[in-house]
């Protein structure tokens, strides 16, 4: 992998928007790895939390958007709760999800969901899921 880094990347407007939406200051992250260490879905993320923060510091918004990470985040706040710098990867990912949902198609279509699930699963799962996956 090679990254050609330019001022536009480092001062990326897109990342600036994510910062605004999430209320997080990406510069604060010093890449300690605690979030990746504690994240329950880290194992399945194409880009795990610590690297998300780094990629965004480098302005690689598109790569992070293309990855499955933001759709996997369960919002458990373990990352935020243990981050020594008080950063919330959860908030960053939520901001990115919001952006993606506003722009493009929904992640999940209601019609694709199995009926037994809709019947048995608690309402809250469905409400919450819709809020995360559907614009």
């Amino acid at each position: 992998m090679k990254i050609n880094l330019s001022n536009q990347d480092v001062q990326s407007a897109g990342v600036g928007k994510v910062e605004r939406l999430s209320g997080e200051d990406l510069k604060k992250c010093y890449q300690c790895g605690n979030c990746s260490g504690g994240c329950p879905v880290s194992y399945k993320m194409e880009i795990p939390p610590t690297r998300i923060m780094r990629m965004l510091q480098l302005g690689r918004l598109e790569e992070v958007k293309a990855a499955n990470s933001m759709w996997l985040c369960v919002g458990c706040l373990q990352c935020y709760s243990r981050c020594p710098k008080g950063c919330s990867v959860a908030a960053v990912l939520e901001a990115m999800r919001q952006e993606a949902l506003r722009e493009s198609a929904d992640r999940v279509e209601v019609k694709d969901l199995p009926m037994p699930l809709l019947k048995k699963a608690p309402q809250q799962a469905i409400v919450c899921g819709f809020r995360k996956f559907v614009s």
Partner: protein
Amino acid sequence: MNKMDLMKIPYYPGCTLNTVAKQFDSSARDSALAVGFEMAELKQWNCCGATFPLAPDNLMGLTAPAKVLSGARKEGDTLTTLCSVCYNVLKRTNSVIRESKEKRGVVNGFIEEEYDGSLNVLHYLEVLRDRVGFEKVKGAVKRPLKGVKAGAYYGCMLLRPFEDVGIDNAERPTIFEDLLKALGAEPVEFPNRIECCGAHLAMNDEEVVTRLSGAVIDSAAGMGAELIVTSCPLCQYNLEKSRGAASNGVPVIYFTQALGLALGQEIETLGFEKNSTDVMPLLKKKGIV
């Protein structure tokens, strides 16, 4: 006890407790009466939204919970909930409204009300600990859960973020175990009690849920737990569902069912049949029923 003398606490059940988790609701109401308070359901309520918007500028997402809070304020200065998610959403929304004048203005504009955040949002566990007192609960126990090694599963929403919701130390909570102790059970502290169950991924990613919930059950069983108690319908659902995948099958029940059981309520009223894991064999084995 005369119903009139009871301490009445406004109560928000939330949508799930009205449907698939009725047993959570009813066992909690009955148990409350047995230890001296009444859960007075709000006259009017709506879904809280089931997720607190993590992006701070998303004030639209606060509308639903703000409406609940504002309505509840008209019925008292305290609001109690049972479901961890409702608790998390309502409590955090409440602090946003209380602490930020600016956001309060916007949210009040959305709901067309004047709510100032002055409610005290409590989880049922907090009511038991701080208003009733575990000592009193202990005194009311008629059917002690003697010999039951029970693991309390906190999940995420009761504890995080600590600054806003934490009903107890985020890494080393004890409130749940203290309750189980009062009920006569042997609480088992297991490492994954504060880890996520997979939450809403139940909708579209079974693998994650099976893995995370399975790890919770494994972790509890590994420490010797024979029973897991929860405080959230989604946790309950995920844990029960992944039971097959987990190497150790352990029944999962709502903590209020355990409470009702210990307080001596009729077994039939506790709604165990609604759970998809069967706790009866364990209770029989322990000689509790």
